[in-house]
C-alpha cells in the first residue's frame, strides 16, 4: 500500500497484450479477477471468469469498488449451540483478488477507508485480510464525466497514487506503470517492452470550491438543511454507491436449529431508522438532520476524526448525483455554502 519509487517502472503494451494479460489473470486458479462487467445493461465491478466478460465500454461502474473490501454483507462469525455448549467459529477471507479497471476516485476511496479500518484501533481483521490480498490495477479516465468532480476534491482522472498498477491510454496503446511491489508481481516477466515514457499528469483545476473545514460548524444549525433535504426520499442509494460511505449495522440471524450467524450489512444515514437506539429514540429523526450528516461526514466529521488533514472524505466520483431519484446534488451544497457568507 505504500508507494516506493524503486518499483515504479513503465511498459508500453498493445491492446492484444492487455487482453492476453487480463485473460490470463481471469483464468488463474490462484486468484479472482474483478473487473467492470456489464450485467443487464448495468456496469458493476464483478468477478470475471474470462477476459471477454470485461466491459468494453469504459464507463464508471454504478457501484464503487468498496464492496470488494467491505462487502454489503459480511459474516463475522457463526454460533453453534448444542445443549449448554456454545461454540463460535470465524473464517477470514483469504482469496487473492486482482481488481482491474479501478477508477482513480475509487482507489482514493479505498485509501480513505483505510483510515478507519486499518489506521485506527481496533484494526478490522476482515478488511485487513481483503486489503492485503488485493491488488488494484487502475485505468486513467479519458475525461471527466458529466457529474465527476474529482479535481475539486484533490483528485485527478489520471492520478495513480493509490493504485498498485496504473494504465494510461497512449495513442492506441497502453502505458503500464507499476507503483508497488504487489503490482510488480503481476507483470509478466520478459514479454513486455519497458519504456521510459512518463505519463503526463496535467492537473486541471476543480470546477467547484469546496468550503474549508472551519466553515462547516458555523452552518450546523442553518435552516438550509431542512429545506435542502425536502426532496430527499430517504433511500440509501447515495450511500451505497459511495466509495467512502462505510456505516454498517450488525445483527444475529438464525441459520438453522441451534445455528446462528452474526452479520454486518451496509447501513446509511439517509435511512429513517439510522442510529435508532433502544426505546425507539432516533437522534437524527428528520431527514434534514440525516442528509446534513452525510455532507458533514464527508467534509468535516470523517476528516477531523481520522486525521485526513485538508482533504475530504469525498472523492468526487459523482455517483450520488447520478443515482439520486430526487435530484439531490452534493455540489450544490458547496456553492450554497460559499454564497451564504
Amino acid at each position, binding site marked *: 500500500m505504500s508507494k516506493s519509487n524503486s518499483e515504479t517502472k513503465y511498459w508500453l503494451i498493445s491492446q492484444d497484450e492487455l487482453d492476453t494479460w487480463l485473460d490470463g489473470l481471469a483464468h488463474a486458479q490462484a486468484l479472482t479477477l474483478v473487473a467492470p462487467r456489464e450485467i443487464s445493461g448495468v456496469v458493476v465491478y464483478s468477478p470475471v471468469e474470462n477476459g471477454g466478460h470485461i466491459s468494453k465500454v469504459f464507463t464508471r461502474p454504478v457501484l464503487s469498488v468498496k464492496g470488494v473490501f467491505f462487502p454489503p454483507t459480511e459474516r463475522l462469525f457463526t454460533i453453534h449451540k448444542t445443549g449448554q455448549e456454545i461454540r463460535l467459529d470465524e473464517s477470514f477471507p483469504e482469496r487473492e483478488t486482482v481488481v482491474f479497471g479501478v477508477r482513480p476516485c475509487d482507489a482514493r476511496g479505498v485509501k480513505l477507508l483505510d483510515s478507519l479500518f486499518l489506521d485506527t484501533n481496533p484494526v478490522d481483521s476482515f478488511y485487513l485480510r481483503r486489503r492485503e490480498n488485493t491488488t488494484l490495477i487502475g485505468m486513467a479516465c479519458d475525461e471527466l464525466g458529466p457529474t465527476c468532480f474529482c479535481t475539486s476534491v484533490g483528485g485527478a482522472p489520471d492520478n495513480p497514487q493509490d493504485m498498485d498498477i496504473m494504465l494510461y491510454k497512449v495513442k492506441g496503446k497502453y502505458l503500464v506503470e507499476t507503483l508497488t511491489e504487489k503490482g510488480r508481481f503481476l507483470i509478466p516477466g520478459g514479454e513486455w517492452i519497458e519504456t521510459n515514457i512518463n505519463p503526463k499528469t496535467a492537473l486541471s483545476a476543480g470546477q467547484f470550491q469546496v468550503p474549508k473545514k472551519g466553515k462547516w460548524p458555523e452552518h450546523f444549525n442553518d435552516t438550509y438543511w431542512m429545506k435542502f433535504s425536502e426532496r430527499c426520499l430517504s433511500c440509501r442509494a447515495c450511500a451505497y454507491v459511495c466509495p467512502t460511505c462505510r456505516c454498517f449495522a450488525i445483527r444475529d440471524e438464525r441459520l438453522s436449529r441451534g445455528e446462528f450467524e452474526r452479520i454486518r450489512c451496509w447501513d446509511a444515514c439517509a*435511512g429513517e431508522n439510522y442510529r435508532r437506539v433502544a426505546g425507539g429514540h432516533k437522534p437524527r429523526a428528520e431527514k434534514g438532520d440525516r442528509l446534513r450528516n452525510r455532507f458533514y461526514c464527508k467534509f468535516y466529521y470523517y476528516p477531523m476524526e481520522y486525521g485526513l488533514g485538508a482533504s475530504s472524505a469525498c472523492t468526487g466520483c459523482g455517483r450520488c448525483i447520478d443515482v439520486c431519484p430526487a435530484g439531490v446534488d452534493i455540489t450544490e451544497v458547496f456553492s450554497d455554502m460559499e454564497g451564504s457568507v
Partner: protein
Amino acid sequence: MSFEPKIIAFLCSWCSYTGADTAGIARIKSPANIRDIRVPCSGRVSPELIMRAFDQGADGVLVLGCHIGECHYDTGNHRAAKRIPVLHSLMQFSGLEPERMRLDWVSASEGERFARIATEFTETVRGLGPVAWRFSPEDRQIKAQSLQPIDNDFSMPVVDCAGKTDGIRAKAKELLASREVGCVIGYEVGPRGRTRPSFAYSPDEADKLVWNPDVSNNLVSYLPVKLKRTGKEPPKKVAVVVKPCDSKAVNVLLAENQFARDQVHVIGVTCDGVRDEKGSLQSRCQACTERTPFVYDSLIGEPVPAVTHGTQDKAAWLENLPPLEKIEFWLYQYDRCIRCYACRQACPMCNCPTCLYERDDSIWVGMGIGVNEKRTFHLGRAYHLSGRCIGCNECERACPMDIPISLLNQKLASEIHKSFNYRAGLTVVPSPIVTVLSGEYKEG
C-alpha cells in the same frame, strides 16, 4: 431414496383442521408429508406466510378453509379467496410451478375430502420433484438471463410547456398569496439542468416552478409526510402538481384515509408523456392513454387526444418461459439489487411506518444481501402493491441497478383487473384485496 416432498398445510381450526381429525378417526389414510399448521381462519393465512414457507424450503403449500358461506367469522374465507389467487399468480410469474400452491375448502365433517385433497396434492408435488425456489450458491450458479431488448423507441411529442409552466406558476402564486395552501409541491430545474421536485412556500418561490418533458417524479410521494400532524396545529393545506398517473396515487391514498380530501389542492396538468434519459418517450407513457388527471381542483392545459403506440409487451416473453428459467431470470435480476430501498422510498403507496421487510427481528426476511432475501423483499413489496400500484414506474426509475420491478406490478395490476374489474386510483375506492377497517380513522 425416493423423493418425499415437504408440504406445509395451513388448516382452519373450525373446519379443515377438524376435517383432518375426522379423516384420522375414520382411519382414512392421508400422506405423512403434510405438516399441519392450525390457524384460526383461512383469512389469517397472510400471503407472507406462504412466501415464507417457500423461502424456507417447502415443496408445496396447501391452504384449506371453510366452504364459502360457512366461515365462522362470516367472511374470513372470502379474504383468502381474494388474496391467495393473487399471490398464486405472482408466484407463478416468478417461476414457481402453479401446482405447488393450492387453496381449497374442506368442512369439519369431510374427512374423506381432506384425505383426497391431501393425497392428490402430495402426489402432484411428488411428481414435480424438489422445489427449485430457494437458491443456494453451492448447488448452482445463476445463469445470465436478461430481458429481451424491445425496440420501442418513440420520440416525444412536441408540447406547449411554456403555457403549462405559466399556468402552474399563476395558480401556485394565487394559492400561496391567498394563504389557501402553505406549500406547493411542483417541479423545478436544478443547477445541472435536471428536473426535480420543488417546494414553494411563497409567491416569489412559485417562479421557480416549471413544466417540461422531464417531469418524471411522482410528487404524491411527498404528500403524506407534508400532511403529517407534528405539532398542536393541524398541518397546512398543501397543493401538489400531478400528471394523470400521479393523480391516481392521490385517489388511492384518499381511499386508504392517509389524508382528507380538503387537506390537498390538486393542481392537475394534462400530460403528453415524459422522456427517459435517452430522450424517448418513457415506456410507461407509451402504453398510457390517460391525458387528463382523475382528480384535480384546478386543471392546467388542454386535454389532447391520446395516441396509442402499439407497444410490445415485455412480460409476454417472460410468461412463456418454463418455470425454472423464470426463477433464474428473476434471480439474475434480483442478484444485483443492493437493498438501497430507492424503489420503496420513491413509491407513493409504500407508506408503512416500518416496512415489513426491514424489521429489527428479521422475522420475515434477513438483513443480508443474499438473493433469496432480495427476492422476498421484492415479491412482498409487489404483493403489498397489488390493486394499489398506479403504474407510475417511479420504483423502476429510482432503481440504480435497473431491475425491471415494474413487471411484477404490471402483472398484478392485470390480475386484479381480470379478477375484480378494478384498476387502482381511477376513483376513491380502496383495492378489493385491501381490508379497510371502518370507523378507525378520525380526521384531524
